[in-house]
């Protein structure tokens, strides 16, 4: 049981909890909270893909010898991806909450069951 597997289990558990909440909750704000949890889980799994045990952070200051850098640092590419994903995530959450506010101003309800205009 190494650390990569532990973090993968944590991330997958968060994804499942978030999906369960999104599918069963009625309140729209709570659905968005579930999506936020799913985001955290996916980001954890992505960072864990680049983690190598016993190595150090990809910042080449005096603690890392420059000529042997590729044998001493963890993978920097997933970190760069996740870095941008977090900022995008919060903007997308804000946009979805804006939709919720507008819907609420229209129908004065937060429950997802009251919006059945396109239901067949």
């Amino acid at each position, binding site marked *: 049981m190494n*650390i990569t597997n*532990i973090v993968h289990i*944590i991330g997958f558990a968060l994804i499942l909890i978030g999906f369960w909440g999104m599918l069963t*909750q009625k309140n729209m704000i709570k659905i968005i909270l579930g999506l936020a949890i799913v985001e955290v889980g996916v980001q*954890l799994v992505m960072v864990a893909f680049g983690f190598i045990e016993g*190595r150090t952070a990809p910042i080449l200051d005096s603690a890392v010898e420059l000529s042997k850098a590729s044998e001493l640092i963890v993978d920097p590419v997933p970190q760069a991806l996740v870095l941008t994903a977090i900022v995008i995530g919060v903007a997308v959450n804000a946009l979805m909450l804006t939709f919720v506010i507008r819907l609420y101003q229209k129908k004065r309800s937060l429950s997802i069951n009251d919006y059945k205009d396109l239901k067949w």
Partner: protein
Amino acid sequence: MELQQGIFILMGLAMIIAAGLAMHVKDLISSIIAVGVVSLFASLLYLLMQAPDVAMTEAAIGAGLSTLIFLYALHKTKDVEEEND
């Protein structure tokens, strides 16, 4: 090495408990706080996985910004929610 794995498992359990709490409790502020706790521990895990850039982003955004955005949305949709309580 044992200690490090123990810290990972402890933080993972705390995250999973907080996520379950966020989906389980009735009142919305508690669940927003629980999501804040999830992102706090996520930032600590990033730090333990040697990703200080990601940890800093998660700390700067998950600590204040995301909580406040949810609270504003809750504030704007409040009147019905208090009737239902």
